[in-house]
């Protein structure tokens, strides 16, 4: 593809203002920019894969800019080009970056942004007098499509440019956008799409996303592909610390002096960590070391927006030396001249880390400079695996999702708001979107029924239907209120209930001299999840917004805090849930482990650790699954090493303990890390295996994903979280809006109660099905666990030990750090009651 792109490049000439603009600057258009221009002329939807710094954005816009200025076709009343980005900030940033050359070339065009922040008056005007180019987000597109004037706005649409497509397609926003695209295609007969993406593992999935899929077709129709090779290979090192690399934990504390030295030696350093709490800890610790008062800042998604904007501005202005950040800085916005990226903790995926490292450089021909800092010994192996993968250019980006049924429900309602729809037509339309290609008519009909009346077998809500069939066999909304409800609830981002954290003002008490009172009116520091505040009692300290804070209590639904002095903060629980170790990287880690010849690439202390493991226990061969059993204290342990990521291990732990329970092994608990799973109990599991009372093959048999999984889910609270999100997206319960309701639990009826009732009475309801799919994918990693169980079958190697093995130490150290599960809630109540009894019995 690249070859042809270069061939055609010579044949093409840029129209005058463009040609002159490039020449004036001594530039030549990139081959891929010209290739995309050609694709535009040929009216062929195309995916452009290019690394950062490749002039990707300009390339994406070139076809439409040229068309708009060239034989300027009749200025119609509609939008000519729609640019859609996953980030509001990116839409605004790109608009700014595009305005400059457009002005320099004196192009006569009208370019505007539209996001949730755009004032209503401007949005209104945009619908009356649409701009040539509109830069917006998926939610705004959905919103515009739900109005009656869609055909006028979009009827003459020529281009849809989808930025950061690789990030969009793995989320529900990508589902929503795919559905919107299917409608845009119907409204605008002559529309092509241009996808801009970082390098991905399976470009064909993205190419299918950009095209119209036809019903019944076996093979997907694919958009064209233009791929730009990466520039210079990045220069990546793993920190070779003089300090002892810890067995477990995720703080990276041991490497602080070395990280600080790296900051001193560079201009602007981005320090990526995996979670907000890690960011807080690291930031806090760096400032303790910061004798030179280097300007080091903090950036993560919970911080107050104003504070984040300040940090971003300072980055662009070049006044910062380092920023500790989470994935909030992962995507394309250009934040200045970063010359070193440090990644603290596990890389989790090879592509993910490669993209982060790419942030260090926005010029293609210079190598990015990066340092990986593993925070424990397993992570050393993971970093090594990532390093090798990047050197080979291997990709392990997550695969695009199968379209969510909750998102489809939202879209169906939106389409009914626009105009009455014919179900046959809408079915064809939505199944032309690749995430929904192959959805059965029956499922679609159930979704329509769900939107109309709730879709319950007990047909008691027919009189309250939101959609009704009209005489022409089309569904229309039954009441204007329904459309209003839709517009207030549009979108697929459902935040966990958040609580604002506000610094309290101390003032002296007038009535009691010497006593200070705490008033409100201090600065808002940001927001934290409600569950986090839930577990705190006044007086607890925590690190947030770069400070150690003391929780003083709730005041009018805000958490009031004061600055704590000196104390070591009680830190949020480490949550790595979001990014489990990628399957690809896991396989590589297993290979490093299984081949002692490769250990020489690892730091001495890590290879020594593995050598001792070989002496005291065994090293599993590549393809083998090691299960170790040993006694410790007065309990018996079983540790296995699937390397399938924390989510899959947690699910495995839940299911294995159920089976061990049935096998009378009396399990007590388990703990899971990204690499291993440890289960402990009252009976000697090792002896039971050796004595033939317990069969490992049966214990790990794949059928655990059937009835056992169902039975466990029925008892656990796990699905309630995903159900709430599906219920909001699907329009069953309403989204909360600022000022409207105060906390998540004051919602009209709690989604937990709805879940309980629905599960009991209609377990195969379509919304439970949607929640189950999300849970299986996002919380349980069922597919991956299934693959593991297949792989493990017949290849389990058991070894019974006298004591804990070196390999088991890291996961054993995780015991006690795990958050509580629903099942343990009864114990909390029991203990609270025992306090009272103790009091009554005079024991305190």
């Amino acid at each position: 593809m690249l070859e042809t792109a270069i061939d055609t490049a010579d044949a093409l000439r840029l129209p005058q203002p463009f040609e002159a603009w490039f020449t004036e600057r001594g530039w030549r258009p990139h081959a891929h920019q010209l290739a995309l221009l050609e694709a535009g002329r040929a009216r062929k939807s195309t995916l452009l894969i290019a690394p950062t710094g490749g002039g990707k954005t300009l390339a994406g816009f070139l076809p439409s800019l040229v068309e708009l200025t060239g034989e300027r076709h009749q200025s119609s009343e509609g939008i000519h080009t729609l640019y859609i980005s996953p980030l509001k900030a990116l839409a605004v940033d790109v608009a700014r970056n595009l305005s400059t050359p457009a002005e320099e070339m004196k192009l006569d065009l009208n370019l505007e942004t539209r996001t949730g922040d755009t004032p209503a008056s401007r949005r209104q005007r945009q619908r009356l007098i649409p701009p040539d180019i509109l830069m917006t987000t998926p939610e705004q597109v959905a919103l515009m499509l739900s109005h009656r004037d869609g055909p006028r706005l979009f009827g003459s649409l020529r281009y849809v440019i989808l930025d950061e497509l690789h990030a969009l397609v793995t989320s529900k926003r990508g589902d929503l956008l795919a559905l919107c695209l299917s409608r845009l295609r119907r409204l605008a007969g002559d529309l092509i799409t241009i996808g801009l993406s970082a390098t991905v593992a399976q470009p064909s999935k993205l190419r299918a996303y950009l095209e119209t899929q036809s019903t019944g077709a076996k093979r997907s129709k694919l958009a064209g592909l233009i791929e730009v090779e990466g520039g210079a290979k990045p220069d990546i090192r793993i920190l070779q610390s003089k300090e002892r690399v810890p067995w477990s934990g995720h703080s990276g504390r041991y490497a602080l002096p070395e990280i600080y030295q790296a900051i001193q030696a560079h201009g602007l350093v981005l320090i990526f960590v995996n979670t907000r709490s890690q960011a807080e800890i690291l930031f806090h610790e760096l400032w303790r070391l910061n004798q030179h008062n280097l300007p080091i800042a903090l950036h993560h998604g919970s911080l107050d927006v104003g504070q984040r904007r300040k940090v971003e501005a300072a980055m662009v202005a070049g006044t910062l030396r380092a920023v500790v950040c989470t994935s909030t800085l992962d995507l394309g916005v250009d934040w200045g001249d970063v010359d070193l990226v440090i990644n603290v903790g596990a890389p989790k995926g090879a592509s993910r880390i490669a993209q982060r490292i790419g942030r260090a450089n926005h010029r293609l021909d210079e190598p990015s400079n990066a340092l990986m800092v593993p925070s424990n010994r397993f992570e050393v192996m993971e970093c090594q695996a990532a390093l090798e993968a990047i050197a080979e250019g291997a990709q392990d980006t997550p695969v695009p999702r199968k379209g969510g049924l909750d998102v489809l429900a939202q879209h169906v309602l939106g389409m009914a708001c626009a105009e009455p729809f014919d179900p046959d037509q809408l079915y064809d339309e939505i199944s032309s979107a690749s995430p929904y290609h192959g959805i059965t008519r029956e499922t679609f009909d159930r979704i329509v029924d769900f939107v109309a009346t709730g879709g319950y077998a007990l047909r008691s809500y027919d009189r309250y239907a939101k959609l009704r069939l009209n005489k022409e066999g089309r569904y229309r909304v039954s009441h204007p209120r329904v459309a209003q409800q839709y517009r207030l609830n549009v979108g697929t981002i459902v935040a966990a209930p958040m609580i604002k954290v506000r610094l309290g003002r101390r003032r002296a008490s007038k009535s009691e001299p010497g006593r200070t009172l705490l008033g409100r009116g201090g600065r808002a520091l940001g927001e934290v999840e409600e569950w986090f505040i839930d577990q705190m009692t006044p007086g607890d300290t925590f690190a947030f917004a770069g400070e150690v804070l003391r929780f003083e209590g709730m005041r009018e639904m805000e958490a009031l805090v004061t600055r704590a002095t000196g104390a070591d903060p009680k830190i949020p629980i480490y949550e790595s849930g979001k990014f489990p170790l990628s399957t690809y990287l896991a396989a590589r880690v297993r290979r490093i482990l299984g081949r002692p010849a490769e250990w020489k690439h690892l730091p001495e202390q890590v290879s020594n650790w593995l050598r001792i493991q070989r002496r005291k226990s065994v090293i599993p061969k590549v393809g083998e699954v090691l299960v170790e059993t040993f006694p410790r204290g007065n309990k018996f342990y079983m540790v296995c090493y699937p390397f399938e990521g924390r989510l899959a291990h947690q699910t495995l732990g839940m299911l294995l303990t159920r089976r061990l329970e049935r096998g009378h092994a009396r399990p007590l608990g388990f703990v899971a890390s990204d690499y291993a799973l440890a289960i402990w109990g009252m009976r000697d599991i090792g002896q039971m295996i050796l004595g033939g009372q317990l069969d490992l093959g049966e214990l790990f048999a794949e059928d655990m994903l059937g009835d056992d999984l169902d039975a466990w889910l029925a008892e656990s609270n796990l699905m309630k979280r995903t159900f709430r999100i599906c219920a909001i997206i699907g329009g069953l319960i309403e989204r909360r809006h600022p000022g409207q309701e105060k906390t998540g639990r004051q919602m009209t009826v709690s989604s937990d109660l709805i879940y309980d009732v629905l599960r009991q009475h209609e377990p195969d309801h379509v919304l439970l099905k949607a929640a189950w799919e999300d849970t299986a994918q996002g919380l349980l990693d069922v597919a991956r666990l299934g693959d593991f169980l297949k792989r493990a079958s017949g290849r389990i190697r058991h070894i019974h030990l006298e004591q804990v093995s070196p390999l088991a130490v890291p996961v054993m150290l995780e015991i006690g750090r795990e958050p509580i599960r629903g099942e343990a809630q009864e114990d909390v109540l029991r203990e609270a009651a025992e306090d009272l009894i103790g009091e009554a019995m005079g024991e305190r």
Partner: protein
Amino acid sequence: MSGKQGKLALENWEPEFASNALGIHVCGERFEAHNSGALYWPGEQTLIVSDLHLEQGASLASRGSLIPPYDTQTTLGELAVVLALYEPERVISLGDNFHDVAVAERLSADVLEEILELQAGREWFWITGNHDPRLPDELRGHVTPQLTLASIRFRHEPAEGAVAHEIAGHLHPAARVAKRGHTVRRKCFVTDGRRLVMPAFGAYTGGVNVLNQSFAPLFPAESFQVWMLGREDVYPVGKRYLLGD
């Protein structure tokens, strides 16, 4: 506290913990709290429930929120279980029996039949509440804004101030406790030994924290206990162990 002490104490209290009902004393009368949220009065062979909010789903559906219509069935099912357990001669339902009078008047034949079946063979008092100042005519039983039985007054909304001899509902009490850094929030009974407020029984009813201002005027002595509804049991917890929201 150490777990060992707790266990020891628990053994001594075994009789009270043996069933999933626990003795509560209000004004010298002994009641048994059940983890469904029902209260049984052995001395009068009377079962008390509060805030059933029947047809809450249908009521919300009539306002555009199509949440599952099975709440009435669920609530009545729970009620049937406790009725079978205690076989009371008398039932007092403490108001807000129906979520919405207008919707209740379109009660389906099935639901009506189910309620009548529960009422069969026992005396039944419907206390009226703010949600249901009147009740569907088809129902059996006495409809009254309040009832006094053996010196205890039953009403929907608790009387103002620190009265005694009263059992009421309306407020939907819930409590929150923390242990080992984790918190649990549940519906609860709340009492100072002089009066008692019942948890809401309905499937879609939530709870308001007992440390919330609305409870303060009812228990001015500042000492009350709650009985939290667990999955297996009812758990007594002293006020000093409770957390606000």
